[in-house]
């Protein structure tokens, strides 16, 4: 029973981790909470759904196409809603983010309506039994995809020239621009990658729960944000850890306390961690900026 909950938590948590990465990457670079990120997740799910059901694109391809489309949307949101406010107050950017979120959600409502859509299943519903837990084929696929994406992101950030530039820009924008780094370009890439990961999560969750709605980004968006803060916002391994920890805590809380308190457990965890370690699990101590 307990191990089963751990496994379920890991599956849920890996989808949170993918969302959390988008928040944390954007925050790491421009210190903005991208409140529209939950809507990017929702957009990803819709894009995947429409590609599969209307355009009859194979699942595998639709998954990556949805990621690419969400990347475009993320770049557009940054360009229209955040870039013009780059040099104004943080509050202005935050309000713009909330505005972008509301706008995208209403746009989805307008185009797709309020009814839930059913995502067809890409694989046959086969369930594997082990002595300790059961897991479906779909769940295995979700786990594998999530972890592959996280590994790919880590390698990209650590090994590539753009990844190195992203880390430099996160540490010191002025000095980074003196290296010949085009800051705007790096910010664009960051939004693209974060949005693509969010969309990947959206597609997988849409397939998993078999429903896609215009408001589906709300709660997972919030949870992804909680996960990012849990891990230490701005910290990439932290976001992965925070997501998984949140997923597991939530599942276990739901199983042993009450499933009605699922969300409350998530926020209780956040409050507890922040009381003990205000910068999050892997967050650096706040440095005075000179």
């Amino acid at each position, binding site marked *: 029973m307990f191990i089963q909950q751990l496994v379920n938590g890991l599956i849920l948590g890996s989808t949170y981790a993918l969302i959390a990465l988008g928040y944390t990457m954007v925050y790491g670079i421009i210190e903005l909470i991208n409140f529209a990120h939950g809507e990017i997740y929702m957009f990803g799910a819709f894009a995947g759904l429409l590609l599969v059901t209307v355009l009859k694109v194979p699942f595998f391809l639709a998954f990556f196409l949805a990621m690419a489309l969400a990347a475009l949307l993320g770049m557009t949101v940054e360009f229209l809603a955040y870039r013009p406010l780059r040099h104004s107050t943080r509050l202005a950017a935050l309000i713009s983010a909330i505005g972008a979120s509301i706008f995208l959600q209403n746009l989805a409502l307008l185009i797709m309506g309020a009814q839930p859509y059913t995502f067809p299943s890409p694989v046959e519903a086969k369930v594997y039994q082990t002595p300790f837990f059961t897991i479906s084929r779909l769940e295995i696929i979700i786990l594998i995809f999530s972890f592959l994406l996280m590994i790919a992101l880590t390698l990209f950030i650590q090994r590539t020239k753009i990844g190195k530039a992203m880390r430099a820009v996160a540490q010191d924008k002025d000095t980074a*621009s003196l290296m*010949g780094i085009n800051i705007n370009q790096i910010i664009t890439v960051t939004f693209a990658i974060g949005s693509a990961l969010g969309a990947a999560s959206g597609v997988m969750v849409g397939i998993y729960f078999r429903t896609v709605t215009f408001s589906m980004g709300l709660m997972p968006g919030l949870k992804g944000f909680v996960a990012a803060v849990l891990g230490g916002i701005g910290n990439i391994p932290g976001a992965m850890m925070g997501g998984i920890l949140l997923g597991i805590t939530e599942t276990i809380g739901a199983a042993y306390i009450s499933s009605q308190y699922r969300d409350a457990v998530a926020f209780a965890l956040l409050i507890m961690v922040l009381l003990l370690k205000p910068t999050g699990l892997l967050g650096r101590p706040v440095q005075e900026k000179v």
Partner: protein
Amino acid sequence: MLRIENVSAGYGSIRVLHQINLHVNEGEIVCLIGSNGVGKTTTLKTISGLLRPEEGRIYFRNRDISRTPPHKIVEMGISHVPEGRNVFPRLTVRENLELGAYARKDKAEIKRDYAMVMQTFPQLALREKQSAGTLSGGEQQMLAIGRALMSRPRLLLLDEPSMGLAPLFVLGIFEIINEINRQGTTILLVEQNAQLALRTAHRGYVMETGRIVLDDSTEALLKNSRVRKAYLGE
């Protein structure tokens, strides 16, 4: 090589530089001296594009760079070592140096320059994989200079390379500055240590509250009574 014409600049509504004129010829070391807060750093930031001139023009190799963004200015051959050794603390020494060559594509040549920097600063070679934040102040200054050299600049802007370093270290750094210049890099040097700056450079500018008040050969400046009183402690 570099020509600043009637440039005014500042931060928001605060004007710091008032119509300054300054030029640097190819092959020279030119120093800009002045007390705290007169606008030396602001001058360098305006040249490298971190700040935009509010009026006036800046030309580099006869091209107007007054409105060019910093990353393009780096590509054109100006490298700015900012004040206070701004290395990327959570990147390794090697990664910091690699970023210095970000705008370049000639891989083989980058490798050569990397080896050259390691030779110039042997202390860095011992710490390649260490994160830059763990280096001592002097080592960070070396790293910042080495990183700037990785872009193969035609013009190197140095902002107070001596700041906070032990005297012996300072001499070492200045020897290296001389050597960099001998190998063909033009240098604009900002220093509070006027003595050292005037002995290193060929020509000098003296700045007071955002204005250039004197410019001459360093020999002449060293003899100038105003300079001796105000900056050489006599």
